[in-house]
């Protein structure tokens, strides 16, 4: 049985193909101007890698921001459910998924079957999303991928108190002008980020085990801060955290196929 999942977000698109319950191919690309393009491009690549064609796919589920516009999808399911499903399949003990993406942040509670139990989402405010880190990395004049390691080396994190990213930016600038150690500033940024995410987590509560997905999961500094604030260790995912949504979509494809065949 060959099934596929496709996640078209606002910054990246992922495709995952499974055969008989195992992942045989996956691909990530930066989004194209139109979701249909992104979906087709990424799925083309994933199919090529697996040596398959669209005809081989028995069922495909799409998810993400552009999910309703994917021509080859048989059905679409919210990225909330897909992230929850995918994460719990990868690490069966997971019950809370914290997805910190480029534009939004979600906290997802699932049961032992990866089924959605509850969720909360922040997609209006930059604070607590990858965008916040982007602003801050620019101010510090570092690559966004450096914020994590840099911050981890700090022994004396600065405090960033402002909730609004715009004022926080000014705060960071002041620290730069004052000549504060960039590692300490990076640590402050990571901590502020973790606090915002933690706020969202509290709205829906935590049940262990937890895992962190989305682009920001690659920022080790934020992850460590979040673990400290929540007093819980996050389970590591065996795959690129950005592909979790597409994996979940793939799993739903399997279920939908099962339902259809019944």
């Amino acid at each position, binding site marked *: 049985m060959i099934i596929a999942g496709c996640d078209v977000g606002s910054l990246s698109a992922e495709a995952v193909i499974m055969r008989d319950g195992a992942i045989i191919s996956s691909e990530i690309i930066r989004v194209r101007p139109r979701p249909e393009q992104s979906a087709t491009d990424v799925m083309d690549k994933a199919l090529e890698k697996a040596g398959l064609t669209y005809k081989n796919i028995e069922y495909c589920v799409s998810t993400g921001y552009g999910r309703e516009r994917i021509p080859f999808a048989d059905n679409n399911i919210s990225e909330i459910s897909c992230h929850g499903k995918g994460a719990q399949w990868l690490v069966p003990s997971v019950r809370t998924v914290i997805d910190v993406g480029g534009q939004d942040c979600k906290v997802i509670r699932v049961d032992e079957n990866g089924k959605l139990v509850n969720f909360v989402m922040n997609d209006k405010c930059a604070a607590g999303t990858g965008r916040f880190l982007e602003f801050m990395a620019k101010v510090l004049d570092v690559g966004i991928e450096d914020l994590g390691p840099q911050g981890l080396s700090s022994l004396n994190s600065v405090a960033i108190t*402002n*909730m609004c990213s715009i004022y926080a930016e000014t705060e960071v600038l002041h620290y730069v002008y004052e000549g504060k150690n960039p590692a300490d500033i990076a640590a402050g940024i990571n901590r502020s980020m973790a606090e915002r995410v933690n706020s969202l987590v509290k709205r829906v509560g935590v049940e262990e085990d937890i895992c962190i997905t989305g682009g920001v999961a690659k920022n080790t500094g934020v992850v460590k801060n979040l673990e400290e604030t929540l007093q819980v260790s996050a389970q590591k995912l065996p795959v690129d955290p950005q592909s979790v949504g597409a994996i979940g979509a793939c799993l739903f494809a399997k279920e939908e196929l099962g339902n259809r065949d019944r």
Partner: protein
Amino acid sequence: MVRTPTLWEETSAMMGGVAALPEDVTALEELASNLPPDAAALLKGFTNPHYIKMSITGLKIFNTALTSVLERRAQGKKVAFYCFSFPRELLDAMDMAPVCTEAAGIIPVLALGCEQYIDAPVNAGLPDTICGGHKASVGMIIEQAEIMPDVIINAGPGSCDPNAKLHEWMAETWNVPLLNLDAPYYHDERSFQYYRREFRRMVERLEEITGQKVDYDRLREILENSNEQIELYWEIQELKKAKPYPLSNIYCVLVELMKYIWSGRPEAVEYFRIARDTAAELVRKGEGAFPNQRARTLWTYSGVYYDMELFRWLEEIGVAFVQDCFGWYPDKVIDTSTVDTMIDGLSDRTLNQPMTRQHKGAWDGPAGWAEDMIFLARELDIDACIYSGNLACKQTWGVLRLITERIRNELGIPTLRLETDILDKRITPVSVIKEQIEEFISTLE
């Protein structure tokens, strides 16, 4: 399980250091420098040298009031949360432990910088558009840093939706009895009579719920103190008219806190007496409370409370915080001869408290916002108005343009419009507030 020490106990312990202080600016500044930044900023607002005696007295009252609530609670007295416009004198006379909902949150956050309590209610599902003061008081209970009340008195309906709704939320969520006092829309005899009947029903219910009766002899004593406060308050209002301005900017915010947390007690009377004496002396000498005064300001709603140092900073740049809406008490002396005159007097006074008085009805009605602000601006010879727009105050934001235009048209006075949270310092940094005020004041010259 509520943690020990509770947040108020912690705050009280910190304040204890203040209670031991001599009336000396250097001593206060030294204490401040040894405290964490939030507490230090709080204390810095009280460092006007002329008014050090008043300031220390005020700070000691914070400590006394907080300790009193803790003691009474430990003695098993019933804890009542009341909206700030409600007269604590009544609750005192019922031998209860009265806690002003708003002050309960504000004081610890100012002293200990506990922002997580502001966040807690939103994490518990409440909208983030409610008032910062309430967020703190509710948050500390949600986070089990404080103990729940036994009864809740909602004196807000009619004048402020978020205030009233929050009190209801507390009652429903914690399963605590709720007493509502509906403020009628108008300000005429019919309205006062309606409110008196509401008030009396509330007193009856309160006695039923708590099992405590009002001790009218005690109430008389307490009200005689309040009456003295009122007389002193009015004297000070007269003294305010002097030029240069003879009071420290911290006077206005302390007046409010005195009322909310300790009105009717001898220490509160003492506070007013010291303020009056100090001001009278300065006026006699033709001196101001601070040098190089440039502008007399009327704050048309609240002050900015999340950084008390701002009050002192304003003095340093020569700006007098002459009056704010929340510190405006057009109170009459209460006739203490009979039970009826006392209860009716309390009822009438409650309907006249800030926010209720100005905002239960039309913005331009009798005793409405426009009438009061224009009266005060004239009386106190104000140069400029400042509206420190707490984002949660939707009822004032909704008619801000109307009132600023009216004030400008009638008196030629401009209004600075600030956008900030009343208690959460993380929303608009105080540096931005200061910039805006400085720019505004310079345009007056």
